[in-house]
């Protein structure tokens, strides 16, 4: 169950919306931040808050790239494989990430810290190849830079 303070703030967000479901994405994102991913319980709670059925929340949740309906690591790595990053040899970076983390795409590291997911363009084509770790964008990646980023991200919570 979500804490009362979170529930109150989400109810306020829904009340300020033009229609309750306008707040759907915000509610799902907040619940995801709380649970770490959008759990079944969170889907049910979102449904109550938004006045929707759990199925209606589910069809939204499964649509969006940044809503996770399965457990993910503490930090999700979205690595871009779009055309501009391809031109900058992102294939090498993606393979390096897989080897380094010991996971395939969609996988979570054994220590539960990172989940590796490919993503479409991050709008960092000028700094390709690019990835984001826990929402923080990084560009002009090289294997050496990837090592440094992973170490820093692992150490800062």
């Amino acid at each position, binding site marked *: 169950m979500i804490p009362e303070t979170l529930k109150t703030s989400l109810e306020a967000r829904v009340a300020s*919306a*033009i229609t309750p479901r306008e707040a759907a994405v915000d509610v799902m994102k907040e619940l995801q931040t709380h649970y770490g991913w959008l759990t079944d319980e969170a889907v049910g709670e979102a449904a109550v808050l938004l006045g929707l059925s759990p199925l209606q929340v589910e069809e*939204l949740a499964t649509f969006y790239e940044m809503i996770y309906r399965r457990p993910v690591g503490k930090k999700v790595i*979205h690595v871009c494989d779009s055309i*501009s990053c391809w*031109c900058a040899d992102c294939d090498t970076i993606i393979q390096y990430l897989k080897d380094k983390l010991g996971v395939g795409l969609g996988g979570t590291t054994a220590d539960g810290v990172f989940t590796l997911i490919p993503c479409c363009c991050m*709008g960092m084509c000028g700094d390709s190849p690019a990835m984001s770790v826990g*929402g923080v964008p990084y560009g002009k990646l090289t294997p050496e830079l990837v090592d440094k980023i992973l170490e820093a991200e692992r150490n800062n919570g």
Partner: protein
Amino acid sequence: MELPLFRHNRPDRVVTFDEYREEGGFEALKKAFSGMSPDDVQQTVMDSGLRGRGGAGFATGRKWSFVPRDLPGPRWLICNCDEMEPGTYKDRVLLEHNPYSLIEGMTLACYALGVRHAFIFIRKGYEQAAANLARGIEEAKKAGLLGEHILGSEHAIELDLHLSAGRYICGEETALINALEGKRPNPRSKPPFPAVKGLWQGPTVVNNVETLANVPAIIANGAAWFKGLALNPEGAGSKLFCVSGSVKNRACVELPIGTTLGDIIDGACGGMRDGKKFKACIPGGASTQFLKPEHWTLPMDYDTVAKAGSRLGSGGVIVFDEGHCLVEATLNLINFFARESCGWCTPCREGLPYVKEILTRIENGRGEEDDITILREHVKYLNYTFCALAPGAMAPLDGLLRDFEDEVREHIVKKRCPLK
């Protein structure tokens, strides 16, 4: 000549509210509110020749004119900042340097359209841009330039941010409207067009960030000034070209419309990377056809690029050199579109993965001569879809088969990628 969009930019930080105002920011708003009717603003934008910078290139003033004047109930303006087209990153660059041109542009657009409440639909991942906008909106409100009684008048305009959760289709205007309403973001059938029935069934205009950010300069300096910014009579204004791929300096640059492809690559981006030879480029984001070396001197304006068989699109120029396999590049693009299809209609849902499968076979040396025919059929039939995603996906494939058929065939004959 000073171009309007980047003129307030600082090299490594966002411009401040005070700096923007000291450099003439919000003067256009004052001008409009003190002596121009909403119709005057709309007419000036119409006369300026401004065309939508999101990709379709539709005349902005005309789009505004489709909103019925006499329908009761609220009407809406949405700024589309969902920018997820590979190769396109201008909205991010613009907003990370200057959120105020957009805020002022949206306020002017609201005034022209009779809108009281507007939204900025911003993609997940653009947190910095969103933070800049949120701060900018508060600053504008405090200064009486937004909110209730703008500049002491009876006009009230509210701007709200809507942060999305990432999905390319949300950039399609009717899918975006569904997304904003909290519905599954599938595209809606048209008609009715959003200008008549859009957000919550009210008249709605959806414009791109760059489009709206141009409006203050148009109102401040006039339509003729804006038209005169372009290098050729076919164009109007400046354009943000975001260049990526095989150039020395990958950058988002503001240049007059009509700047040639060669001047963008050689002049603004320092030429090709590592002395490589230019092979082709996609001039307007992932859903446009290839331009070739013969187009080096092509003026980049909407009509001229269309006549050359491609589209200016979003201005996302992706440059390929002699070492790039264009079958693999097209496969990458198709992979993107197949993954991002919302699955609503069958040709897109089933067709794109099939095209991907065929291109994968060809790239891996298992292609057959018939595959070229099958691909051509898909280019033809994937135009019959609910929205423009699949036709957009077919544009680079069409370009590949039109301009680089020999390269495709070489894969099939040699049973391998000739560039590997």
